């Protein structure tokens, strides 16, 4: 799958007027330097040969050199990637911690006032773009109330989320709110479906307490489909992380990409896209494995 993504960026680079040389050297490169670059980088070879070279380079983390930083793109990405991974993972976990009980509770008290209010809130959350949530929090808590710092310290390492959590409260919650709307709605409908099943009626009929029915029988079955959503929600989350990092100045992949975009640093932009995609693909595969762990039916099948 990743190979096809790499093929896509390869084709994109060749579609740019001037080809990959212009991508690597920048828009102001003249014909002579372009020719020299083409010659030294094997870009006069047949296109298929070029693609395999490109593939080999990307897969061995040779993503080119940044025009602006004069450093290998992979070095830049490596230091940025850890920030994004930590941010996305923490937000993902929080999303599930908040959205699943909310959706389950809504289903349990279906068509009560609580359900309607929660539905209204999640619907608004679903429509509000992530950057508005972030900006709103910054304006309220950092600028007006001075409760929280508005930006994240540049010297903080990726683990600063845990060592100095105060400055990460707003970015994490910005990213968390992004998915809560969709997730809790999904959990609600999944739980509603489960509650209509025969085995729930059986569980009730044999006199189990309502709490036990909900926890043992309904909740466990309703949570399973949500796990498949992890993989599907990852791209949106990584995209949201880009904007969150921009708002709070977190030195992750998003900030790197945007800085590069504003300085026309094309090798970095292409490199971060490949890395972000690789990250989401790996995440989706992990989610699939998690599903196998969580669902006893799949576990016993594989034995």
């Amino acid at each position, binding site marked *: 799958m990743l190979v096809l993504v790499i093929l896509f960026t390869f084709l994109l680079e060749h579609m740019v007027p001037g080809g990959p040389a212009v991508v690597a050297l920048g828009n102001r490169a003249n014909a002579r330097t372009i020719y020299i670059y083409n010659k030294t980088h094997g870009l006069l070879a047949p296109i298929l040969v070029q693609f395999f070279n490109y593939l080999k380079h990307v897969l061995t983390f040779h993503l080119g050199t940044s025009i602006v930083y004069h450093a290998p793109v992979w070095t830049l990405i490596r230091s940025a990637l850890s920030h994004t991974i930590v941010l996305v993972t923490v937000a993902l976990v929080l999303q599930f911690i908040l959205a699943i009980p909310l959706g389950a509770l809504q289903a349990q008290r279906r068509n009560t006032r609580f359900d309607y209010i929660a539905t209204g809130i999640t*619907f608004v959350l679903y429509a509000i773009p992530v950057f508005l949530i972030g900006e709103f929090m910054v304006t309220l808590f950092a600028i007006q109330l001075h409760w929280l710092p508005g930006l994240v310290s540049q010297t903080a390492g990726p683990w600063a989320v845990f060592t100095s959590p105060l400055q990460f409260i707003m970015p994490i919650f910005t990213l968390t709110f992004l998915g809560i709307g969709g997730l809790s709605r999904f959990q609600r409908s999944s739980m509603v479906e489960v509650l209509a099943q025969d085995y729930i009626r059986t569980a009730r009929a044999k006199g189990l307490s309502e709490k036990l029915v909900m926890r043992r029988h309904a909740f466990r079955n309703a949570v399973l489909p949500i796990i498949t959503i992890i993989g599907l929600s990852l791209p949106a989350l990584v*995209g949201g992380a880009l904007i969150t990092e921009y708002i709070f100045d977190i030195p992750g992949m998003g900030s790197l990409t945007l800085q590069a975009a504003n300085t026309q640093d094309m090798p970095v932009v292409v490199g971060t*896209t490949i890395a*972000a995609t690789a990250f989401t693909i790996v995440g989706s595969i992990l989610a699939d494995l998690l599903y196998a762990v969580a669902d006893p039916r799949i576990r016993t099948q594989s034995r």
Partner: protein
Amino acid sequence: MADTTTPSVAPIGGSDAGETTQEGSVYALVWRTFRENRPAVISLCVFVFFLIFSYVGPYLYVTNQTNGFIAGSATINGVSTVDYPWFHSWHMILGGDNSGFDIIGRLMIGGRTALTVGILSGLISTFVGAAWGAIAGYRGKSLDSLMMRVVDIGLSVPGIFLLIVIVVLFHSSSTTITLTLGLTSWFGSARLIRGETLSLKSREFVSAVRVLGGTDRRIIFRHILPNTVGTMVVIGTFAVADSILALAGLGFIGLGIPLPNTDWGSMLQNAVQYAPDGYWWDIVPAAVCIILVVMSLNYMGDALRDGFEVRLQKR
């Protein structure tokens, strides 16, 4: 709502054609369920309001939107229009932005770009996705698995990164942004339409066309796709909402429609820069517009889905 131009939807299955004529066309049925859904009707009104506001508004409420500083050098009641709050005078009801542009006028031209780009790219994404899904679903076998693998990849690439790559590689304009948004967001609709095609292709009317010697192309584009119109309308509504959000995001990170044109996201980005200095009110108008339009589209999409599902139940 009598529909004579696309009668291909009603006679699905043939036998219940009588019922449909009795009850009016399918669209009348959808419209009836839509009308009963009060949030959806309000949403429709909101959306139509924004359409009129953005496309007709600039002709009724004429403002200078090309030369900000000339407008900005003016003062009204002794306050420069550059840092002009809401409701300060009837000249600029929502005040002016940092360049002295009247915010209402700015919202109008911003809305024009946002809605044009949103609707066009939503349409592109729906139609490309539908064609892709229908071809994959109908042809099946190895072509299907190849085409759906492409969809899997498309769904796993964070769209905004692709957008940035393309905006950086090819310079940013409403055309590139529309095309890119449309061509990077059709994967979801391809998957849905493929699913529907799989169930449609085993129906009698498809076999009938095949027996009559209809080509694959004819079957897919004349018979299968028209039967997925309900799904396509629903997908399209959500696709427009998503495109408007994506464009706003792009504008917010500073890669939106270049000046002197603008869009709601770019307006936000512009306003956000001055928020720490106390000009927070500049953020609100564009933010409210984005949220209202996106929410109204989402509600309408939900209502349309309900409507078309009712149609399926009646069948």
